[in-house]
């Protein structure tokens, strides 16, 4: 019996992978408790934002320290829409948020198109620190420091009256994440991905090859902003309240650290990083409550660990989790191949 052949088309291959994965994840939520489902929703939401940031920073090479601010745009769009029209359809709300954040990303992309390295980083840093303040300045509309409340989405009656809130939230987030990763995976493998990478690898060469570099840079920003917008919108539902403190510099840095620790340039890395992002506070708070430590320590330990892990990762594991795993696998595979080659050579020589 001949081996199963994978279809040639990348899109089809990806579909064959992501579809069962999505279904599996949805099924798994039935056996998990509410808290875990809530965290899975969080992981999925961060994975969407992180994957978008991976495309921008990992693949296209533009360092953004301000994606927390873009998530804020998505979250505030959703919160404002719901504040003025509480019955606004869920899907539409999310879609509008994606568009608004995409537009914001386009504006930033245009402004940043000529910036490189530390200049881009500094500008996005200023964005991360400054944008949340707009919410305070326009406090009457944007809710100021207290923020805007967001009611969690209600599961459709078709699924049964007692379908838990957390599971529904997890389902929405999982579906959104699977679709996003599917689309991004196709994009990364395809022509657009190659163009993004080409500009990152050698801008001059890309220009000579006829690539409109500025347009590519803006496109990368728009794509990553759309992802941040989707994540931000779902984030508003997940947290239930949209306030400036939730979107400060820390969020931007957390997203960046997630993709670096996971493995820069890899969509899978974005997923690993998001898992760590969500579960690290859970683990450390478990630790601190066991040891009966003060609230100052409890609140800040996850971040202290993050910072330390980032520093450590740069010193010891510059390629992050995915990169290290790949090189380990690559190393093992090379070893096996070499052995086979040596054996064959030995056979031939005899």
């Amino acid at each position, binding site marked *: 019996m001949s081996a199963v052949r994978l279809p040639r088309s990348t899109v089809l291959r990806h579909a064959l992978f992501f579809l069962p994965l999505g279904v599996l994840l949805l099924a798994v939520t039935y056996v998990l408790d509410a808290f875990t489902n809530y965290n899975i929703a969080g992981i999925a939401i961060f994975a969407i934002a992180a994957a978008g940031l991976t495309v921008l920073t990992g693949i296209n090479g533009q*360092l953004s*320290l301000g994606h927390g601010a873009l998530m804020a745009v998505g979250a505030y769009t959703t919160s404002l829409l719901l504040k003025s029209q509480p019955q606004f359809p869920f899907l539409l709300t999310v879609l509008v948020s994606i568009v608004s954040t995409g537009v914001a990303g386009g504006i930033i992309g245009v*402004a940043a198109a*000529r*910036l*490189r*390295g*530390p*200049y881009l*980083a*500094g*500008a996005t*840093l*200023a*964005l991360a*620190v*400054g*944008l949340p*303040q*707009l919410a*305070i*300045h326009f406090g009457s509309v944007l809710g100021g420091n207290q923020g805007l409340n967001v009611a969690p989405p209600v599961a459709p009656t078709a699924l049964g009256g007692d379908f838990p809130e957390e599971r529904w939230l997890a389902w929405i987030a999982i579906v959104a994440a699977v679709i996003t990763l599917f689309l991004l995976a196709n994009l990364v493998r395809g022509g657009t991905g190659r163009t993004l990478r080409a500009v990152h690898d050698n801008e001059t060469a890309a220009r000579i090859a006829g690539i409109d570099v500025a347009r590519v840079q803006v496109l990368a920003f728009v794509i990553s902003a759309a992802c941040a917008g989707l994540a931000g919108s779902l984030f508003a539902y997940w947290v239930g309240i949209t306030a400036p403190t939730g979107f*400060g*510099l*820390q969020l931007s*840095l957390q997203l*960046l*650290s997630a993709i*670096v620790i996971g493995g*820069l340039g890899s969509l899978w890395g974005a997923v690993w990083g998001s898992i760590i992002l969500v579960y690290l506070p859970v683990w450390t708070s478990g630790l601190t409550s066991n040891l009966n430590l003060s609230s*100052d*320590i409890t*609140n*800040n*330990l*996850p*971040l*202290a660990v*993050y*910072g*330390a*892990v*980032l*520093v450590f*990762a*740069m*010193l010891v594991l*510059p390629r992050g989790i995915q990169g290290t795993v790949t090189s380990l696998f690559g190393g093992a595979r090379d070893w096996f191949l070499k052995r086979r080659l040596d054996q064959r050579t030995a056979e031939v020589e005899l």
Partner: protein
Amino acid sequence: MRTFLILTVDGVTNGFVYAIVALALVMIWRATRIINYAQGAMGMFTTYVALFAISHGVTYWLAFVIALGGGFLLGAAMERVLVRPVESRPPLNAVILTLGLLIFLEALAPMLFGGQVRSFPAPFSRIDLSIGTTQLYFSPYDIFVIGAVILTMVALLLFFQRTTIGLRMRAAAFGPEIARLLGVRVGRMLTLGWGLAALLGAMAGALIAPAIFLYPNNMDEILVFGFTGAVVGGLDSPVGAVVGAVLVGLGLSYVGGYAGSDLETIGGLVILIAVLMVRPQGLFAARKERVA
């Protein structure tokens, strides 16, 4: 008119503090092509240490010196232990590294010292002076801040231009390979440079704390403003950094005064983007490169 004068004095005083941060950033950038995003947080941390000392009976001045010394050691240790290994790797690694340190310090401070907002003492009165019935728009503390910064800049200038070790440091920064061939211990000079830059950051932290209070994130904005000042002046120019930072200080003061204080940071962002789009190389740059 009165408002304008008040805002101007505020802008200049703050601008001088941003100038020290900008100087620190430019020093390290010129020597190692790295932006130390943790510079502000390091200054925050040393200020906490100073406050700790003060609350245990140490005088302000001794605590100030302790903060500066601590900053120096922190910077030197950072270069030796953390930065040295990544100097030869792609620039993104160094960015993530300094950001990681930023996150770490901003979390460590509340863990050690508590997260609530604290007030930091000023060695001189912060009440505006008046001669008879005329009110001047600056306080003894403002004079102290400006004086301290000017003194520091003069000291740095003399240090770099007139001493042998200053010459070695300049050589190590501008031509490390050639410097090594001339017997200069470049590694040591870089460590020294980072130590000095961190000392400047510590000074900035201590000087601005009375005005903005002490809390783990208090230096985030100061870092952004200092960076903006350095960019406006041109990342390779120390003089530019100072002028740029004072200009930024003035600009922000006017924005905050006339448009609303919570728009200050956005104002800073607008200034930064505007400069980067219109005159990317900064006001004082000799070279026209905008690439890292």
